[in-house]
């Protein structure tokens, strides 16, 4: 079908744009360096501060520390995977909590009135202030033999950032059905649960997909920031901090970690794009919202 082909070529096209964007950034990076040798720029463009793109790639196969068997690339890959798992965990928890909140707020006006201000207020608390607090409280928690670990705190912070856009988007989506659709369901003597499953949830999908995108991004940002501010080891956030301290000896190394963080974002974005295509396949291609 032509619509399928349209979608594929559209996908290819947007992928091309992504690569064009990356190429543009690389070119601008190198041009800035060239410019820095010609005129005085307000920032340092030396190889120390801004290594060449090829130096960055050359750092991939270097040993992480002198004499180690692990390369920088392997270390970054491992850290990125670890962060991805934490972000994923935070995302799943955040989405679940966000959806539940939205359902409760939609069903009971009382809860919408009572909860929504707190949901909004929750996001005005600065994450940096919150992170050590969560770690501090978390460390005192234990469920029998299971001891709270700092990685749970990281996941919690990711979830804390991720639930908000989802609950707001989902609430709006659940409230999206027209009065006519709702009257129709009433005429079928549908129970509240049936209305939720057969009408409100499907009708909320066009609102849910953008909310999922924002939540996914928030869970990645939350993970990386939480890793940095809690100092938890093993993730890309901490690795970036560690490598940044080595700029004098190996200036390119930190950029490999930056690539890892970018890859993390891209993997999540691609996963959400796939979910988007799957979820909205039964909807008109435009005319949503």
């Amino acid at each position: 079908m032509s619509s399928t082909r349209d979608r594929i070529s559209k996908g290819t096209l947007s992928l091309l744009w992504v690569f064009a964007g990356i190429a543009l950034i690389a070119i601008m990076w190198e041009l800035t360096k060239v410019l820095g040798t010609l005129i005085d720029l307000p920032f340092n463009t030396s190889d120390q501060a801004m290594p060449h793109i090829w130096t960055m790639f050359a750092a991939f196969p270097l040993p992480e520390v002198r004499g180690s068997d692990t390369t920088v690339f392997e270390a970054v890959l491992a850290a990125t995977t670890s962060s991805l798992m934490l972000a994923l965990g935070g995302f799943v928890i955040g989405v679940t909590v966000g959806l539940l909140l939205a359902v409760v707020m939609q069903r009971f006006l009382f809860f919408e009135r009572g909860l929504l201000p707190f949901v909004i207020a929750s996001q005005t608390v600065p994450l940096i202030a919150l992170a050590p607090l969560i770690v501090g409280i978390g460390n005192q928690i234990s469920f029998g033999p299971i001891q709270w670990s700092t990685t749970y705190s990281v996941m919690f912070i990711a979830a804390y950032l991720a639930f908000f856009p989802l609950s707001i988007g989902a609430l709006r989506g659940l409230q999206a059905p027209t009065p006519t659709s709702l009257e129709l369901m009433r005429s079928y003597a549908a129970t509240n649960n049936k209305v939720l499953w057969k009408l409100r949830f499907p009708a909320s999908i066009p609102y849910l997909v953008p909310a999922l995108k924002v939540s996914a991004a928030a869970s990645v940002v939350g993970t990386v920031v939480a890793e940095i501010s809690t100092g938890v080891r093993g993730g890309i956030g901490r690795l970036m901090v560690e490598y940044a301290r080595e700029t004098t000896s190996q200036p390119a190394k930190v950029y490999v970690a930056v690539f890892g963080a970018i890859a993390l974002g891209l993997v999540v974005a691609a996963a959400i794009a796939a979910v988007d295509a799957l979820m909205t396949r039964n909807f008109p291609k435009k005319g949503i919202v």
Partner: protein
Amino acid sequence: MTMIHDKVQNTGSALAISGVSKVFNKGNDNEVVALSDVNLDVHTGEFISLIGPSGCGKSTLLRVIGDLTGFDSGTVQVSGKTPEDARKERLYGIAFQQAALFDWRSVSKNIELPLELAGWDKSARETRSAELLDMVQLSDFGTHRPWELSGGMQQRVAIARSLAVDPPLLLMDEPFGALDEMTRERMQNELLRIRLETGKTIVFVTHSIPEAVYLSDRVVVMSPRPGRITAEISVNLGDRTEITRESDNFFHSVTAVREALRLHDTSGSGVSSHRGEI
């Protein structure tokens, strides 16, 4: 196409409305008497239209019958039951001006929605939706998405859906109001054919005098402030044919309805001014 109205048997009470009143915003400054002492009896198999200017309470009356809204006093019996029981027992089907089809469901699945909610099993649902698609002449469109269909086709799907559980009563709230004139007349003929095939009792809300006259056995004229029934005009056009709309008989009925509307028109412009209809 031949329409033999006399074949539809007028026996038994499908709908009995007695002394029904309804007030919106009771006690407030913007209090509106939506319905005042409304009395109406509809026989099984009868086709009646509710007509009147905006605010005359015709849609409200339809919603009262369907238990989509409550009323303050009087009694309503749908097939001998309260509106609430009738709704819960799925004794009526309803169609609105907006087709209100669900985008995420195929045409067939839209028609099957009331059947799912009534607990029909899959194979029975599929058989029934195929049957109904055939009735509304959309057999080739079962797997299409609603948004791929024209407005008229969407409205046919909505009518098929309203007939899904085979309820004895059909409530229609300006179902053809958003369609162009040509499509509208074709849909009117479709509806009369379906009515003949199924023998449903139909309560039809409309703004259009010719539409009301062409479709109905009886046109119920309503008037606003307060919303009430001011006249009931029996239509005896016999079989509807291609020349029905041009016959003297049709013209006389249209005139009778128009005069009944004008008699209680307080604005002085008549019902037709609202929509630019005849």
